[in-house]
């Protein structure tokens, strides 16, 4: 999953933060910096979006200096070392600072963009502040980065049960994906971001996973054609988040910032949705309701395992379950307490 966060970063658009409850006058403008991860550096879409954020921040009394990083590991370590006040990273990295908000991408927890939107809106509410604060750190913005889908070389494998014994190109450091492979009884073909597309396209793996936005650039259609497809059931929702050291900002900054970021949901998602629309209809594999249940159950098993291993934060899993049950009160999971 981690790798796909990186892949999606190529197209993701990012907006940012606003500054505190108390609008500052020009004389009170403060200087702050943000480490921005964009695989294309200062020429990338993410960085450009960060520049729009920079302009926005000015009107809130924050003069922001942006630093572009093409390597998320370096961006992350610079933020950790205090070289910038804010960092714009994938949620997977943010999880290292704020456990709860960083668990938003939990596998299969939010099968639609509407559910993701609702969850981000809830997390932007002032009552949810404690879920966004962890020690010295605070998540001050959450943006959608696109859903991750399962890609198959053979469309007959579209029930998750059929994946047992099959080979899946998996990023070895992606804990959620490796657990998933284990739970479905598949075998892992170890891959890196740079290699998984080739492994899938050359037939060394039966399946791989990617957000829609990565499908064209990585030519994954080659692996899908002529007998495969893309399972229309999101494995996870990628998100980009902005994390801050809260002592560096005014009280209430986080609340205002999250509320503003939540209003940017649709515009942030437009590139992803375009990429999804561009995929020819014949490649999408619609999953019948009964098979969806199988997916959902397996995903839930993985989420619970990862929660018990302290990878996912229990409160956020509970919140996402409530969001799901709020949308579909009849769902079987709503009568148990697993999450």
């Amino acid at each position: 999953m981690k790798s796909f966060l990186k892949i999606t970063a190529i197209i993701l658009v990012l907006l940012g933060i606003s500054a505190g409850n108390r609008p500052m006058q020009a004389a009170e403008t403060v200087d702050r910096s943000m480490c921005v991860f964009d695989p294309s550096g200062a020429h990338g879409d993410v960085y450009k979006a960060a520049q729009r954020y920079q302009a926005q921040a000015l009107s809130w009394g924050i003069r922001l200096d942006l630093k572009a990083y093409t390597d998320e590991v370096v961006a992350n370590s610079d933020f950790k070392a205090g070289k910038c006040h804010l960092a714009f990273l994938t949620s997977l990295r943010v999880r290292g600072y704020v456990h709860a908000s960083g668990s938003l991408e939990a596998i299969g927890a939010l099968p639609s963009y509407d559910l993701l939107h609702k969850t981000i809106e809830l997390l932007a509410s002032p009552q949810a502040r404690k879920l966004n604060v962890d020690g010295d750190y605070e998540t001050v913005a959450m943006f959608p980065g696109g859903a991750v889908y399962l890609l198959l070389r053979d469309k007959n494998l579209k029930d998750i049960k059929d994946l047992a014994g099959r080979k899946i190109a998996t990023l070895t450091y992606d804990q959620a994906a490796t657990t998933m492979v284990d739970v479905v009884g598949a075998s892992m073909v170890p891959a890196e971001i740079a290699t998984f597309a080739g492994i899938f396209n050359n037939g060394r793996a039966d399946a791989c996973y990617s957000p829609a936005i990565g499908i064209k650039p990585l030519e994954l259609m080659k692996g899908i054609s002529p007998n495969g497809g893309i399972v229309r059931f999101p494995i996870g929702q990628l998100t980009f988040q902005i994390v801050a050291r809260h002592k560096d900002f005014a009280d209430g900054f986080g609340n205002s910032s999250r509320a503003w970021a939540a209003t940017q949901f649709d515009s942030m998602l437009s590139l992803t949705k375009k990429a999804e629309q561009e995929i020819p209809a014949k490649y999408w594999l619609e999953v019948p309701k009964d098979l969806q249940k199988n997916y959902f159950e397996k995903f839930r098993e993985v989420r619970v395992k990862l929660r018990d291993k302290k990878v996912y934060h229990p409160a956020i899993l509970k919140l996402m379950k409530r969001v799901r049950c709020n949308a579909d009160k009849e769902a079987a999971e709503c009568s148990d307490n697993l999450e």
Partner: protein
Amino acid sequence: MNIRILLFVTIVTISLTNCSVVYWATGRTLNSYAQDHLVPHYLASDDLDAICQGGTALGPLVASFERAGASVELATMVAQMGAGVCAERNAQEAELLYIGAVRKGRGDEALDNQARQIRFHGIAAKRYGDSYHRFLQHFGEWKGKCPSISEDEELYFLVGLSSGLLAILHDFASQGHAGITRDVPSVVVQASKCLDPKKWWGTPLALEAVVWLSVPGATPEGKDPFKQMEEAVKLGDQQGVRLARAFQIQAVAGKGDTEKMKKLILEHSKSVMQHPPKKEYLFLEAFAENLSRHESDKIWMKEKGHRGPINFSSFPGNKKKNTKEEDDLLKDL
């Protein structure tokens, strides 16, 4: 000597006659080329600037072939509509600067931009008006009955009516500077019935409704312009050609109901995400989107001093208050 003069006169006469024939033939070729290729190419492009500048630059050239005896009405009609879009965009820019200046309390700047806005509306009205004039030249003055329209010409009929409506709306905005004849709305209402609303993405219904909404007392008894507009918009959304939305926005913009505008603009933004546009008519899509974006920018400029998001998907200060449902969802976490 006399023979030489005679020879000279003969040569000049023959050359001029030939030129006229060549010009006439070129005009005819140009007209049919425009109909067969240029207009479809224009319509499939979402580059409003290129089309409007193309229309401004080429319109006079195309129209000049009329002097050579060629009939170039349809090509000129489309070129002038494109040219009208340029002036309309300039008027929009001036309007945004005007709103920004008012916000900053800069009186001179505000008045200057307002004056520019009115002038550009006048230019737009003249260009759209010329486009409408070419429409009448081609299809004949409206005499209360639908003219015979071939299937290939239906689109031009729609474009002509749309130009007429835009001409009158911009003329209102320019304080009547362009002097567009005031019978346009009634012609548009009647002639729009000559086209099948389902085939043309609800636009004929929208044309009718926008007149009802713009001209006091024009709504016939038992008709609800808002309802009809909704119906038109639905047809346009389904087919991925949202020209009806453009007219809906035009009509409601004049009513001063900001909340209603916000709702319509957000709906438009959502619709664009949900229903991909029809590739053959991207120009109409871009035109419609430009209108919604402009109305969104006006609201942003007034409230925040800058333009809004490019896909007009949000407005300032529309943070939701927490509902009981949200409180329940967040309880004890």
